[in-house]
């Protein structure tokens, strides 16, 4: 009975072989193919490998912020002296999680690490939880994203809920109190998901917005469908809310981010206060309220894993942003800031930051409609480009495979033709940015997912930027 697990050894051995061959032949697909093969040989390979970790697995899910939050957690793990792995490539379906775990397995089919910190796609989260039986799960938010794939926000939310319900009894989960749909998960006192949840939230009205965005996903009460009253909105539909109809209100978070200070798009500071009332000041080299929420989630999770506040602060102070999250590059002498804006919430947050926190007279937006972006680009009509047009005198460089749809949207939003530059290709768009940028002020570029890949490629090809790698 206790003999070697031959199926597992075959899965691990052959999976690794395929991985190294595909890397050697530069075939690409190295982030999922080993997972495909290994799972075909032993469907339980991920479950078995995960069970060999000394600490366990922490899964990070939710529509926006999972890559940044998972990267923060890995950085903290390093500072705390733990051995931690992950899937920084962002390959976050079950095959990608399998490949990432397999990659760290030794020849005894064990993963000689303390933690695997894996971001997982929202729709795959229930399956990942069922297989991995993680030690912790982080649920960040539920926004509209790629509706052609995940169809509806409610469907995303119910998957998140089902992931929480599949957690083993001894595990914890970290949830966002500011997102009403996430806060409804485990709201029932006495339920298992209630006992195991640790809520985080922002708690500083000075960092709040004027109100909900023009199209918000969760302005309705997730419990009774009545209209929620928001007294504070921090980002998207996240803030302090109450339902006058059924009495559902924002639950008090155990871990709160107070004294939030935003320094443009470059950095932020906040003071985390835990359930015992202990405070820790934290600086993060990332801008925007949204990243304050990611840092709060990372703090809540890391302390549940056993890290100290000081370790969190020291790790985040020198944190390297994840792929395309506020990455600076130089193009023809001008500074360019690449920002991922892959869905209405992400784009809305970036636009709000640009309107208030940034000084560049020119901004590029690249809209692609590849499979990884979501083929449907209707969402650009839901984001508040009108607000940006009103806020500042700006020129927009329009780019991407759906440049003309974007130009039409900009024209409707109030950008006059002389404030729109049409540059479908990344190189031309970068040229236009460089030409109009103010010296010393990075010109922001908001890019959908495959547009980000194309721009990175363009920068590398021209020697303007090193291939981007996350420090693991």
């Amino acid at each position, binding site marked *: 009975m206790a003999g070697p697990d031959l199926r597992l050894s075959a899965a691990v051995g052959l999976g690794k072989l395929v991985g190294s061959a595909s890397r050697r032949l530069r075939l690409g697909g190295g982030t999922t193919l080993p997972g495909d093969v290994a799972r075909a040989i032993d469907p339980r390979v991920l479950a078995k490998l995960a069970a060999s970790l000394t600490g366990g697995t922490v899964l990070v899910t939710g529509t926006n912020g999972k890559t940044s939050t998972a990267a923060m957690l890995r950085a903290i793990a390093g500072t705390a002296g733990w051995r931690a792995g992950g899937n920084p490539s962002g390959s976050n379906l079950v095959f990608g999680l399998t490949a990432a775990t397999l990659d760290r397995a030794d020849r005894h089919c064990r993963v000689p690490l303390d933690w695997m910190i894996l971001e997982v796609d929202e729709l795959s989260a229930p399956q990942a939880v069922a297989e991995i039986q993680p030690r912790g799960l982080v649920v960040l938010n539920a926004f509209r994203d790629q509706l*052609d794939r995940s169809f*509806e926000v409610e469907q995303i939310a119910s998957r998140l809920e089902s992931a929480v319900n599949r957690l083993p009894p001894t595990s914890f989960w970290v949830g966002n109190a500011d997102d009403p749909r996430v806060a409804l998960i485990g709201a029932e006192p006495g339920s298992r998901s209630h006992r195991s949840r640790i809520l985080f939230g922002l708690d500083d009205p000075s960092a709040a917005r004027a109100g909900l965005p023009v199209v918000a996903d969760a302005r309705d009460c997730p419990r009774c469908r009545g209209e929620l009253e928001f007294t504070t909105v921090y980002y998207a539909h996240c803030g302090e809310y109450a339902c006058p109809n059924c009495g559902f209100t924002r639950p008090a978070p155990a871990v709160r981010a107070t004294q939030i200070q935003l320094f443009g798009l470059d950095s932020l500071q906040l003071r985390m206060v835990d359930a015992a009332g202990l405070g820790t000041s934290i600086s993060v080299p990332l801008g925007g309220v949204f990243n304050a929420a990611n840092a709060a989630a990372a703090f809540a999770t890391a302390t549940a894993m056993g890290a100290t506040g000081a370790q969190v602060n020291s790790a985040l102070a020198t944190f390297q942003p994840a792929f395309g999250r506020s990455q600076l590059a130089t193009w023809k002498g001008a500074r360019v800031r690449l920002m991922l804006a892959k869905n209405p919430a992400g784009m809305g947050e970036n636009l709000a930051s640009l309107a208030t926190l940034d000084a560049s007279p020119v901004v590029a937006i690249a809209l692609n409609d590849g499979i990884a972006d979501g083929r449907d680009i209707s969402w650009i009509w*839901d984001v508040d480009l009108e607000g940006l047009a009103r806020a500042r005198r700006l020129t927009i460089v329009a780019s991407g495979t759906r440049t003309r749809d974007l*130009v039409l949207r900009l024209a409707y939003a109030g950008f006059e033709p002389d404030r729109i530059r049409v540059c479908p290709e990344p190189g031309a768009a970068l040229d236009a940015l460089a030409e109009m940028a103010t010296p010393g002020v990075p010109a922001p570029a908001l890019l959908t997912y495959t547009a980000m890949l194309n721009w990175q490629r363009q920068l590398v090809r021209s020697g303007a930027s090193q291939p981007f790698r996350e420090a693991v």
Partner: protein
Amino acid sequence: MSSTRLVLGWLYPREMNLYGDRGNVLALTHRAERRGLHLEVVMIGLEAEAASLIPACSGFFIGGGQDLDQVTVAEDLVGRKGPSLTTAISKGAPLLGVCAGFQLLGSHYLTQEGTSIPGLGLLPMHTVAGSERLVGNLLVEADPGLGLRAPLLVGFENHSGRTELAPGVTPLGRVVRGGGNTGHSGFEGAWCGNVLGTYLHGPLLPKNPQLADWWLGAALACAGEDPELAELDDSLEEAARVEAIARTMHPDRAPRLRLLGRGLGPRGAG
């Protein structure tokens, strides 16, 4: 400058606004404004008092929604607002329905569980929940009866409902690429007089401005005004439409948009 005032009744803007439907309302307002017409937008939601706003409207729009919302909306739409809406439409007020809003124009929607959700019954058709969703870019050759100058309509569809038209109902057009009403009938949408429904979002009206003008013309006629609309410079709309057609026909081709010109020149589409 005309002092004509039109009123657009936007039905359930909170519940039925899933796929950029706000863009449809923006298109109507902008195209009216550019012609010196004043189009006021009135939100008609689930509130009991909202039904009283209907008689003053010169036309209506209803967008797409989540399944969850569709049931609540259908009850309110058919029960509480049905009579006054039907009266307004019989007087010539145009009604445009997109996606779930299109399905609500038929007699009923039969869900996967076998429940029948009633519709307004303005178009002789009904919808049955399908097992797989029809998702993707959709290209439609518009019905000649609509008299559109450039009769190719383009947008995105994302629906599990299969809409069956009763014999004799005029579809909005023939499917060139995509699923359309059922995925196999070759038809997309339906229209009859001043009622028009379609699965095309994207949103529909900014890139298919002729349909926006169809709505505005009908609303003017309903308001007792001259339905003749001044020509507009549609070069940006046209460029977006041609680009979308190119992406529909060749979704995986690397972007080669030079075809569409580089500047913001007239018509753009070379």
